[in-house]
């Protein structure tokens, strides 16, 4: 009897791992296929698409062409600047607002919290017509600033929501102790509260970053040219132009995939902790 139970468990474990392994394969194989073929010659890509590059088929001609024809360094730098500046601004402004909402009793406190939460559910894209004319009026078309402004507005609602929840959990004693010592309200926030928020920062940064880094819509509409393309738009434009050059297409895709993969593998623990911490409920 006991033996049977153990055998049951063992066979169940096999099934479970078979299911998970097959799904992992479905998730990863397409990406793997693109990356290995980026390192092959044109012949290798078409004759043996599923084989790893060998000494006969290995070629970097795609990468050479991409680096020659497109300014991927600039695109990458643009994406990095927009993403990092947006994250810093969102974190600071959202932490300030979340602190005010969670700490002070003032008229319309709840109403303001709800007003700031509307943007969690309503996509900012729906306001694109007016955003574009606003940016034209401000003279910001084809600048990275226009992207930062839109992404800050897009990132704030969820960041304020998560940080407000988080700040409610800060022990009262800590603030009271600071107040008894006569520390000013600004100093309490910047010296006592802001350092305490650090654990929530990773979660907020991830939720802010992913949609920005991957966005095509606003770069396409607000900053489509003049070397202001983000990496997503840059790849889209490049492939549109060289669509028949398989080496170049595969290489440009790999150049867009590999940095994200590396960043993901480094930060996946924080990211998954953020996603599963129940911050979005």
């Amino acid at each position, binding site marked *: 009897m006991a033996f049977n139970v153990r055998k049951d468990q063992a066979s169940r474990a096999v099934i479970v791992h078979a299911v*998970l392994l097959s799904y992992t394969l479905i998730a990863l194989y397409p990406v793997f296929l693109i990356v290995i073929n980026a390192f092959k010659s044109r012949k290798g890509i078409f004759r043996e698409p599923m084989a790893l590059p060998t000494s006969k088929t290995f070629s970097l001609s795609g990468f050479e062409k991409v680096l020659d024809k497109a300014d991927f360094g600039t695109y990458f730098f643009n994406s990095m600047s927009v993403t990092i500046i947006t994250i810093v601004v969102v974190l600071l402004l959202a932490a*300030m607002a979340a602190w005010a909402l969670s700490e002070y*009793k*003032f008229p319309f406190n709840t109403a303001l919290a709800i007003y700031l939460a509307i*943007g969690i559910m309503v996509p*900012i894209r729906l306001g694109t*017509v007016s955003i574009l004319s*606003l940016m034209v009026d401000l003279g910001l078309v084809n600048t990275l600033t226009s992207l930062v402004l839109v992404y800050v*507005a897009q990132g704030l609602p969820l960041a304020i929501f998560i940080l407000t929840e988080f700040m409610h959990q800060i022990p009262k004693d800590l603030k009271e102790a600071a107040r008894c010592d006569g520390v000013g309200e600004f100093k309490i926030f910047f010296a006592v509260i802001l350092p305490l928020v650090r654990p929530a920062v990773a979660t907020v940064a991830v939720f802010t970053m992913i949609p920005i880094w991957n966005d095509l819509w606003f770069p396409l509409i607000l900053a489509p040219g003049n070397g202001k393309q983000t990496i997503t738009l840059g790849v889209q434009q490049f492939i549109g132009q060289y669509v028949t050059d398989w080496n170049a297409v595969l290489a440009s895709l790999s150049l867009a995939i590999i940095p994200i993969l590396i960043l*993901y593998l480094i930060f996946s623990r924080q990211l998954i902790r953020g996603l599963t911490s129940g911050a979005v409920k």
Partner: protein
Amino acid sequence: MAHSGPMTDWRKAKLPVFAFLAPATILYTLFMIYPLIDSIRLSFYSAPSGGDLAFVGFDNYRTILSDPDWASTFWNSFWNNMKFFAVHMLVQNPIGIALAAVLSLPRLKFRNTYRTLIFMPTMLSVVIVGFIWQLILSPVWGVGADILDIVGLKSLFGPWLGKEGSALITLAFISVWQWVGIPMMLIYAALLAIPEDLVDAAIVDGASHFEVFWHIKMPLILPTVAMVSILTFVGNFNAFDLVYTVKGALAGPNFSSDIMGTLFYRTFFGYQLQLGSPTLGATVASLMFMIILAGVLFYLFVVQRRMSRYQL
């Protein structure tokens, strides 16, 4: 949530409270709320041949919903979007729930590795995902047929993305492939929050893991499933990048993969011989806003309310 709410009287710190709230509120209002409201306002105006704006009441809505050309385009993209959403609800979310259920089994080895790897496509840009699948499904390359050959289904392969009957569904499956990580993670988190003694008691009573999942865990995670559904709805009715990347703004063949996002883009910027129109674009955006709002309100006032009755 058992917090006591704000404690400090703002009158003791008027300037700091104002300084804390103003920057976020101003930026958010200026670049999110104002454009949304202004778009709705613009939908009641018209600017013939680039002239000054003139108030036209509901004319734009009448054009889009009842002009023979516009109405067929609009309803085509609406129903396509509904199909796109249906595929996500029927394929993405059940797979996400199943993966979460398997991942949360007790004493599972390599749990974190599986979770990390399966979530990976979600991190890639929609544009990248669109191109990856466009290449794999391309009959020119033929690697899709080779893969199907391994499982003996080569005869099924066809130029799915190029056919009117299958382009939209194929795009929906590509999107499912990319986004399945989100329901998986959110439901996994909800499953972790279920008290262990509840599950242990049932196991001791002789219930199988499947029975435990179906009869005990599933009812408890229903609120999360509902939340995942509304996130799916909002995401799908706001989608654009994938169709634009793979099929372009014309969402071909013959508009068979046209969804609300691509219609909005074409209406606003124009295509081929048709000129773009900011006011008609704003009208399409306002209609999308109403559809999304209807979904969110349905969730808040019907689904969530009914669910809270069953909560502990």
